[in-house]
């Protein structure tokens, strides 16, 4: 199935009346470099996502998926366009407010997990809670609850290096959902995992983490997990070029 970029942009912006908008990006552009070396990483992207969705952004390497994800999660400032999350124009926020926004509204699962090898699993999960000014003790107790959700309560006191790749991914998910963020962003969550484990992880996320009050965005080019998405957006050369699933949403 192929559609024009304008069509998908128009389609995705028109939200059904019954749904609440989570993220709305309008005319987002991002360049890198200057002069002849200037590259357009994100080119006039319009995107809207709603709570209760698990949206995939798929596309070849270098198509701008990760850059777009960074722009809409408040990590990378766009050169043009606006991004609103739950009605707040995030790129009009001060640096401190933007950091608070990321801390309170967004949960990240990085491609390489970026767990702290010198901390225990529970301490890793407690990090966002500690940044929210919880005491070390309270944060650890709460972190163990999130580890329970991802089925790793028994591994709370182990360092991440003692866990398998799938378990480390689940720890990263537990850290991302610690503090109950509204938006969860997963960057290539299956890249370091075998097919079965990757599928199991994303299934788990869909079944246990996704709910009506949460929106999950996943950047991936793993076709084996596409069946789990509620909507799949295709990206190429910095533009959203179509969808593979969920056009009717």
């Amino acid at each position, binding site marked *: 199935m192929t559609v024009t970029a304008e069509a998908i942009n128009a389609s995705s912006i028109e939200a059904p009346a019954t749904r609440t908008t989570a993220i709305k990006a309008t005319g987002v552009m991002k360049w890198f470099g200057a002069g002849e070396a200037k590259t357009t990483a994100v080119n006039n992207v319009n995107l809207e996502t709603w709570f209760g969705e698990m949206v995939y952004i798929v596309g070849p390497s270098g198509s701008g998926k990760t850059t777009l994800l960074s722009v809409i999660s408040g990590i990378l400032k766009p050169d043009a366009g606006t991004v609103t999350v739950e009605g707040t124009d995030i790129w009009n926020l001060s640096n401190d407010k933007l*950091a*608070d926004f990321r801390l309170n509204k967004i949960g990240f699962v*990085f491609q390489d997990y970026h767990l*702290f090898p010198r*901390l225990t699993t529970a301490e890793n999960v407690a990090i*966002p809670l*500690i*940044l929210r000014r919880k005491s070390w003790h309270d944060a650890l107790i709460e972190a163990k609850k999130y580890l329970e959700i991802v089925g790793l309560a028994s591994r709370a006191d182990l360092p991440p290096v003692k866990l398998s790749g799938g378990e480390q991914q689940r720890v990263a998910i537990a850290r991302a959902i610690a503090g109950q963020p509204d938006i969860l962003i997963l*960057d290539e969550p299956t890249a370091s995992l075998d097919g079965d484990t990757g599928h199991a992880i994303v299934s788990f996320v869909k079944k246990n983490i996704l709910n009506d009050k949460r929106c999950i965005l996943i950047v991936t080019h793993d076709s084996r997990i596409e069946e789990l998405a509620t909507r799949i957006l295709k990206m190429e050369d910095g533009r959203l070029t179509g969808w593979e699933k969920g056009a009717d949403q």
Partner: protein
Amino acid sequence: MRGILSLAYKLLVNDKAKFTALLVGITFAVFLMVAMTSLFAGVLNRASATVINLGANVWIMDPAVQTVANTIGMPDYVLDAARSMDGVEYAVPVYSGGALVKLADGTYQSVTVVGLDDTSLFGRPQLIQGKIEDIYGENAFIVVKDTEFRKMGNPRIGTEFELNDHRGVIVGIATVASSGLFGVPTLYTTYERALQYIPNPRFTISYVLVKRRSPADITRIKRQVQALGYLALTKDEFMDKISAFYMFQTGLGMNLLIMTVMSFIVGLSISGQTFYTFVLENLEKFGALKAIGAKSRELILMILFQASFTAFTGYGLGVGLCALVIWLAKLRLPDYAAMITWWNLGLALVMVIIIAAVSSYVGVRKVLRVEPFDIFRG
């Protein structure tokens, strides 16, 4: 905030290899700095031993005197004039000079002889054996029981020796606050006996020791002494003058300063480099923290805490190690002069703070520049 500091602490100490390397670097640097400066402090203290032990408020001397050991004799009228000066409660002469004594076993030993004012015995040492009035006895001397005591053949009361063909006898054993610098035993006797036993030039008074009536009188006494062509210094000023001589005119100060600076550079290099590597290895993690929502000031706080914690722990270990080594050295080498003072500790602390500040600065610069986007890009 405590949670963030706990996080910084865990990240630091759980990396045992790096933390140990950091601690070893700073401990070693502090040890060297304190060892060097304490040796210097010990030498200066011993150089001023006579000034400390005699304890006079004001010392009158020839202006050319540079250390307490190199005395220049003054005529008797200086003593008489001092006694009649405004603000002087009393003034006494003191003799200080070197001599050679022949011990009972026939060997010769250099000694310092201090001759106390016959009337007042001002500046007398504290006796641990014998009675002070015995100093008026025939050929009487009091020996100081310090690190050099054994060089007199571990004398007891009644032990005899010869000093310039005069018979000498030990009538008391004393203790003093500070041992001398030159590694020779000290004998106390009366001023008149010292002049009698030791050949002297025309002018015999080494120093006039003055007790001033009040602290406000010092300026007046100094002015009156200056009018005579001599110099009056307070105890502290005289010790500073002696320190300045050893520091600036013997090369000792410069050599120790160079060693101290080298220790500082070694410490700075080791700990700065190790801390930089530590930050570099954790850079992605700091980037992840930034992405998650840590503010720049929180990351700065974490790095400052890590650098300060390491620096102050290393400081404590370094000072402790130095104190232990000095204590052990003094067990084997009684003459070892090192002495840890507040000044040494303060200097080492300042240098450690500089090391922590430089290390933090390097780390903070690096962490502030890391872009969370780089974490996404992998």
